[in-house]
């Protein structure tokens, strides 16, 4: 464990150099991935497979996390609401926090952990077992078969998963509010509707596109750079979730700042 390759945990003198090299690789992977997608050369069947992985196969975990997150949000905001006596605001406060921040961040983190890590593991395994070299040797470009399907699948599907989890979280929040906190569900839902949260909903979905792009770029780049056998694949997966998480938080703040600038 002492020689682990986790860049963000390493006290190496070459940290800056490695980080710059990583950013360069990130740009190259993203650029070539997008170029292939725009020219329509992405592999059709592999794209379908990737779409299945990121949506249908992730749905159980995503909705479980969203339901739990919805309950937590309503339990925790209930204390603040009760102390001010504003029962009618609970739905609004809950919906606002959930739609604009909590659901997108939770979904993106779970997405990074599930689909991003899986992509890195798959591409990394191909890399360490020499399959990537074999493809290049035969004159086959790996991009249309490996990273382009990931970009096509992740960028549009992450907002879709956020929308699904918004629904789950709101259902869980309404149930939690009426069963545990004791707020009338009608009042809860009405206050959410009257809060006019369309702006927050849209902002959450727009964030999804950025998060999807970050996770796709990070997971493909790290997968293509894997060296060092089985433990190398494990460490690359480790790096993938770490860098994706940092990227998600950075882009969340950026979208927040830019959104308000554009909206006002």
């Amino acid at each position, binding site marked *: 464990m002492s020689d682990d390759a*986790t860049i963000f945990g390493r006290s190496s003198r070459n940290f800056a150099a490695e980080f710059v090299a990583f950013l360069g690789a990130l740009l190259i992977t993203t650029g070539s991935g997008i170029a292939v997608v725009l020219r329509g050369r992405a592999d059709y069947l592999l794209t379908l497979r990737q779409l299945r992985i990121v949506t249908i196969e992730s749905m159980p975990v995503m909705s479980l996390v969203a339901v739990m997150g919805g309950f937590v949000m309503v339990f925790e905001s209930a204390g603040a609401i009760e102390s001010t006596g504003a029962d009618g605001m609970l739905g609004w406060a809950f919906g606002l926090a959930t739609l604009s921040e909590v659901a997108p961040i939770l979904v993106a983190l779970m997405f990074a952990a599930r689909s991003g890590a*899986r992509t890195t593991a*798959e591409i990394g395994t191909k890399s360490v077992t020499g399959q990537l070299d074999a493809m290049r040797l035969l004159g086959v470009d790996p991009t249309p078969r490996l990273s382009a399907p990931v970009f096509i699948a992740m960028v549009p599907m992450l907002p879709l998963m956020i929308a699904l989890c918004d629904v789950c979280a709101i259902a869980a929040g309404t149930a939690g509010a009426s069963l545990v*906190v004791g707020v009338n569900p009608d009042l809860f839902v009405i206050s959410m509707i009257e809060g006019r949260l369309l702006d927050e909903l849209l902002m959450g979905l727009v964030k999804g596109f950025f998060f999807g792009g970050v996770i796709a770029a990070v997971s493909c780049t790290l997968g293509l750079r894997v060296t060092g056998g089985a433990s190398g*694949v494990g*460490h690359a997966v*480790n790096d993938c*979730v770490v860098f994706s998480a940092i990227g998600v938080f950075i882009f969340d703040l950026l979208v*927040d700042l830019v959104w*308000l600038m554009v909206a006002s």
Partner: protein
Amino acid sequence: MKATADRTGIPALALSTIRTMVTAPPNMGRVVREIHETTNRSLLFVSVTLAFFGMILVYQGCMQALRIYPDLSGAGEIVIKTMVRVFGPLVTGLMVAFRVGAGIAAEAGTMVVTDQADALVVTGSSPARWLVAPRFAACLIGVPVLTVAGICAGVTAGGVFAAIRFEILPRTFFDIGMVEWEDFVICFIKAFLNGATIPIVAGAAGLSTKNSSEGVGLATTNAVVNSAVAVVIIEFLVSFIASVTGH
């Protein structure tokens, strides 16, 4: 033959880890090294993510508060309270699951693939004793520390952001008047449970690795997903109990 195959479920691994902790506690030197590995080396990552989260929380909180009432003097109190009660333990737990959980699973998986896990059993030790128990002890100590550090980073970044963007004086922002002792109790319960759960869930995923490099990658993925879900479930259970008992 995989001698470790019957020790890879989460309940079984939890039981044998706890038994090991009681009967043959890992030596202190090893635990200290693991604390360095899990805590010190995650500190930068946890601080960076929580700092961004603190700024997000302040930004959203203040923008929404301004729509109702143009006075932001109470914003700091609410941000600090929610950070301590909810988001500090939750986000830190997720980040530890990502960084530490993935590391544990990658190492355990590599040991299984290279037959070192079987060698441990043959020599009279066990993966629970050698791999999981030291990290279990390290995370019990390290995760609460990381949670506190993360909350400090988040609140500080949020305070600086509030001072620059919303011109809230730091003296007004850093007001812990709303934070009660039970908020800290809830925070630490969540942090301890996260610390106890992540190494076991991640270790179980790592030890159930099958065949070669593909297996290690998949086991690491499973470890991250399972321990992240475990963190969210812990958050839910503790909040639920706190809410029902009126804290």
